[in-house]
């Protein structure tokens, strides 16, 4: 009803402004059928299936008048499982009013996408990605689309005002101010929570300088409990652009109060520093490196909130082995857990106080991205591609330590190295059809040796991810796709458990010795560049020596996609 009223309102406006509206219509349609079942050893869990859940997203971009534009995404959904409209639904995926306040100032109100810097407001990507091929990318792209993860932007509801103006000939000074409501009060015990941010940036061809501020705060007036929460992050970033070298830096601090008493505002302050450079050695080779130091009490909900909510159970087969053993969210859930009909998701859409849970099987070097507290060290990246683009290689290295020891003076040493390649065999062999081999490997570890007289086991946690993919076009527009993904993780680490005031109050001894595998084989037919059908069968193998648990899940997918 609300949607109908919204559209009635919009068309009423359109009729008033004679020379407008100007319309653009776009969208996509996806249909997914899948069937997932556990191996024959499990006789309790039922198969999980979707019988062609169909969604049709209609995007309308309308210029209502000279100053105001309108954008909306309307979703029509249905399940072909039932041959009537009882499972049909219609909802509004996005609504946005945007336009100009003046020549140099614009605004957006509604469902807005927000991003600042990796230490202030940043939606870090999900774990477990090394170099995935088209088969995995198809599903990962759908997951991100379904959960409003557009690059490193956070989708919020609120208002943003932006502006820019030239000072001299080739420079710009710009600003952005936004405010969103993160949590609605229940008028009793939960306060309204708001996010406010502002940034101002000067940019020329050589230099750029920015100042950023973000604050997550509560309005505790009017509720029975005195809940005064504030989390400020201030930062400044400074970049220099030489011919082949680009220097970048950002430093700042956070200030957090999380007391439940308005009169006892104890502020917890944290700091960070990040400096580095990118060097384009040649047209085919580039190198970048950076050093960062993030203090143990640096708190930045906008950049530390995780994309995946690991405190939830997986939506599919949360308990295995005849419902006797619970399992955590893993790679397959993050990539392939697509369901157009389900309203809840393991993907997190909230920015809240405190550090989110994470799954250490993916490594513990930087669970909260660059803004992970208590880390110091160097990260480097090397990218090479030959002039014919036959092979592209990317290598990444990170060597970090704890900035300050956790529970002991000795600091953990973290390392992560990964290598990824795309090998276009068709170009090498002179084929006119697509023949691409790609792969990647990453190794992440954390280590800390303890003195013998401490009588505590050493920290030694390793996480490895292998990714292999193949795409072979056997007939025109018909490709065979194959991918293999393997995560193997083992060892022990003592993970800090933080209280509301961000201090470490105890530790969780995390121990694992497990392997997760995904073997996929599929066929893809491209009707054109924007429309395709994919048929995919895969086996997921899970083996956990600590829990003495192993099982397999078989999955079959049919995915039809049309974009226009």
């Amino acid at each position: 009803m609300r949607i109908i009223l919204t559209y009635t309102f919009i068309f009423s406006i359109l009729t008033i402004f004679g020379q407008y509206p100007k319309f653009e219509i776009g969208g996509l349609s996806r249909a997914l059928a899948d069937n997932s079942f556990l191996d024959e050893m499990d006789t309790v869990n039922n198969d999980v299936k979707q019988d062609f859940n169909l969604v049709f997203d209609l995007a309308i971009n309308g210029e209502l008048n000279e100053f105001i534009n309108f954008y909306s995404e309307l979703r029509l959904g249905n399940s072909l499982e039932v041959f009537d409209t009882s499972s049909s639904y219609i909802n509004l995926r996005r609504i946005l009013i945007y336009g100009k306040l003046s020549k140099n100032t614009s605004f957006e109100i509604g469902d807005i996408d927000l991003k600042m810097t990796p230490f202030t407001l940043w939606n870090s990507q999900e774990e477990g990605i090394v170099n995935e091929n088209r088969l995995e990318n198809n599903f990962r792209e759908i997951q991100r689309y379904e959960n409003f993860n557009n690059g490193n932007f956070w989708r919020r509801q609120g208002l943003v005002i932006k502006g820019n103006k030239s000072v001299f000939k080739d420079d710009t000074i710009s600003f952005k101010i936004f405010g969103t409501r993160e949590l609605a009060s229940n008028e009793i015990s939960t306060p309204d929570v708001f996010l406010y941010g502002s940034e101002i940036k000067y940019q020329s061809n050589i230099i750029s300088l920015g100042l950023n501020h973000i604050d997550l705060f509560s309005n505790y007036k009017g509720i029975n409990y005195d809940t005064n929460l504030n989390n400020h992050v201030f930062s400044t970033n400074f970049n220099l652009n030489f011919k082949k070298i680009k220097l970048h830096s950002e430093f700042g601090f956070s200030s957090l109060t999380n007391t439940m008493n308005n009169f006892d505002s104890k502020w917890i302050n944290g700091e960070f520093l990040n400096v580095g450079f990118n060097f384009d050695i040649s047209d085919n080779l580039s190198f970048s490196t950076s050093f960062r130091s993030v203090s143990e009490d640096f708190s930045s909900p906008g950049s530390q909130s995780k994309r995946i909510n690991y405190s939830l159970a997986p939506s599919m087969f949360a308990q295995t082995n005849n419902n006797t053993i619970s399992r955590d969210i893993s790679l397959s859930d993050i990539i392939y857990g697509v369901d157009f009909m389900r309203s809840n998701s393991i993907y997190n859409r909230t920015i809240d106080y405190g550090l989110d849970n994470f799954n250490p099987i993916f490594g513990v070097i930087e669970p909260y991205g660059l803004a992970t507290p208590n880390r110091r060290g160097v990260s480097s990246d090397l990218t090479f591609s030959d002039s014919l683009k036959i092979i592209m290689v990317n290598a990444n290295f990170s060597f970090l330590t704890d900035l300050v020891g956790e529970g002991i003076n000795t600091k953990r040493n973290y390392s992560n190295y990964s290598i990824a390649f795309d090998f276009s065999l068709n170009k090498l062999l002179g084929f006119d059809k697509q023949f691409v081999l790609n792969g990647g490997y990453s190794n992440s570890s954390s280590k800390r040796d303890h003195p013998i007289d401490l009588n505590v086991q050493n920290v030694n946690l390793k996480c490895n991810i292998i990714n292999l993919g193949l795409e072979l076009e056997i007939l025109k527009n018909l490709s065979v796709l194959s991918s293999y993904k393997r995560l193997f993780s083992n060892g022990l680490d003592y993970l800090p458990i933080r209280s509301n005031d961000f201090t470490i109050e105890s530790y969780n001894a995390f121990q694992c010795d497990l392997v997760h595998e995904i073997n996929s084989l599929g066929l893809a037919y491209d009707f054109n560049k924007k429309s395709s059908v994919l048929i995919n069968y895969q086996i997921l193998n899970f083996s956990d020596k600590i829990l003495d648990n192993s099982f397999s899940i078989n999955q079959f997918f049919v995915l039809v996609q049309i974009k226009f």
Partner: protein
Amino acid sequence: MVKTFNFITVIFIFLLLISCGKVDYIGPPIEAQFGELIILEPFSSDKPVGVDFSLNDTVRFFSEFSISANYNINISGRNSGANFTISGTGKNLSNVFWAGNSDNIFFKQYEWCDVVLSFDNSDTTLSDSILILGERDFSNLGYLLTSYEDPSEYGLVNSQNTTQLQVLNNSSIAIHGNNFLDISGEGSNTYFGATRISIPLGGISEPNKSNIFFNGFFKSDLNGSAVVVKMFEDENNDGSYDQGIDEAWTYKFTLNSNGVWNKESFNFDNFIVDQTAGNVQIDGNLNVGNIIRLDVVCSQNGNSFGNFGYFVDYLILTYNSSL
């Protein structure tokens, strides 16, 4: 160009050196939660034949562990039921002393105490026992009002509703020494008698009222029983409290009727000007140096008809902290 690059490099190295350095570790010690606890030295004390706290003696404990552990030493008196707990973190018990103090009621003379050493996150417990040869003298913590041992320290005031007002002699019941007061009354009034204690001018050596605490031990099984502590100033220095000229102060608290001794303490800041029964506010300032009298009144928490009363012992004013 080169100069600029060098400048940036210097800044970078400088920031690298100064940024966010810390020397200590954060969080509780890792071994306290995950280390293997091995007792390297058995639990013992340096007073195997008993300790006389009246001579300001102390008990020192010994033990050594394989890890830095969160430990608790719980001391409980077998006769009095008094308890005292010492908690800490470390690999041994060096600098852990017991001076005879208690969490609630007092330990008694010639009482055996069970001492148990336990650890967080561990089932390991170690035991010892200590004989108390002499009680600790707490009077040096402030100004001892009375422990009902010396009748010259106090007076007893009754009313028409008083049913019991007698100092009893029973060392197994008394908190300190042998004597305690049994006071009770019947009716719907709020005054059933009192202990009256005279204080010489300047007798309270602590000048700041915010640093003074009233402490006393009360035992009652009569619901609704309450205590009113009244304090009287001699503002004109004539040696007596004069209604309308001098100022009186009052504080009332309800007693726990659980039938066991309870320690009650409150800060002098809780006193308010008494403006009942002819008392009036003069300057509204409590000058500790002018206090000449203190009454501990048997009262009730309301005005219903019934029996109200309590045992009371060891009334003391302490400085800087409660008893």
